[in-house]
């Protein structure tokens, strides 16, 4: 046998469950998973790696779209394959429905995932081709939840 220098894979998964705190951590009321939301941003906005929390600046506005966006629903339990930890929401993100269609007239190309339990702190930014919606539905289907495709991966 030999020793191998590495970041422990279990640690990567535990980062996704808030197990470790190297600095001052927020006080948690329960051990339950936090709640997360998804907000859409105009193509003219500036949402990127420097974004620290949800902001209404640059967010889309329109019929049947509520500022702050929609709940992502539950995330898959964080897990790992090989040395990569990963997770993502369990279901697609859908804005509007046939009975409550959205109209987003100004082009948007970005969704911000943020933690609505922890002061709306930002998690990740995902971009796509510029879109508008007229009396319709906007659906974001997620990639395969695995170590090479999931929305959130710690490699």
């Amino acid at each position, binding site marked *: 046998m030999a020793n191998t220098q590495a970041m422990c894979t279990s640690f990567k998964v535990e980062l996704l469950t808030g197990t470790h705190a190297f600095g001052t951590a927020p006080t948690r009321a329960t051990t339950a998973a936090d709640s997360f939301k998804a907000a859409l941003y105009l193509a003219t906005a500036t949402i990127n790696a420097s974004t620290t929390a949800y902001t209404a600046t640059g967010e889309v506005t329109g019929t049947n779209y509520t500022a702050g966006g929609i709940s992502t629903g539950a995330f898959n339990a964080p897990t790992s394959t090989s040395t990569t930890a990963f997770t993502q929401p369990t279901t697609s993100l859908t804005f509007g429905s046939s009975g409550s269609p959205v109209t987003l007239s100004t082009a948007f190309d970005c969704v911000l995932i943020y933690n609505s339990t922890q002061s709306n702190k930002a998690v990740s930014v995902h971009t796509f081709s510029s879109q508008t919606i*007229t009396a319709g539905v906007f659906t*974001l289907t997620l*990639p395969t939840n695995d170590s090479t495709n999931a929305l959130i*991966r710690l490699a």
Partner: protein
Amino acid sequence: MGMVTTTKGQMDEAQLEKREGLIDNDDEHTKWVEYWHEGELVHRSAHVTLKKMPSIDGAIASF
């Protein structure tokens, strides 16, 4: 033909001109559909399937 939700309420699809499009690249697979009535856009929906996202790479240093 079915009914389509539009800016003018529910309309019979037969009354509308349908336009569809597709974007497929390394980042996304996107389909959109538009319905036009008398030269006016009355419905547009889009379905974006996100593909592989960049990962966060952890790193450690040797002593």
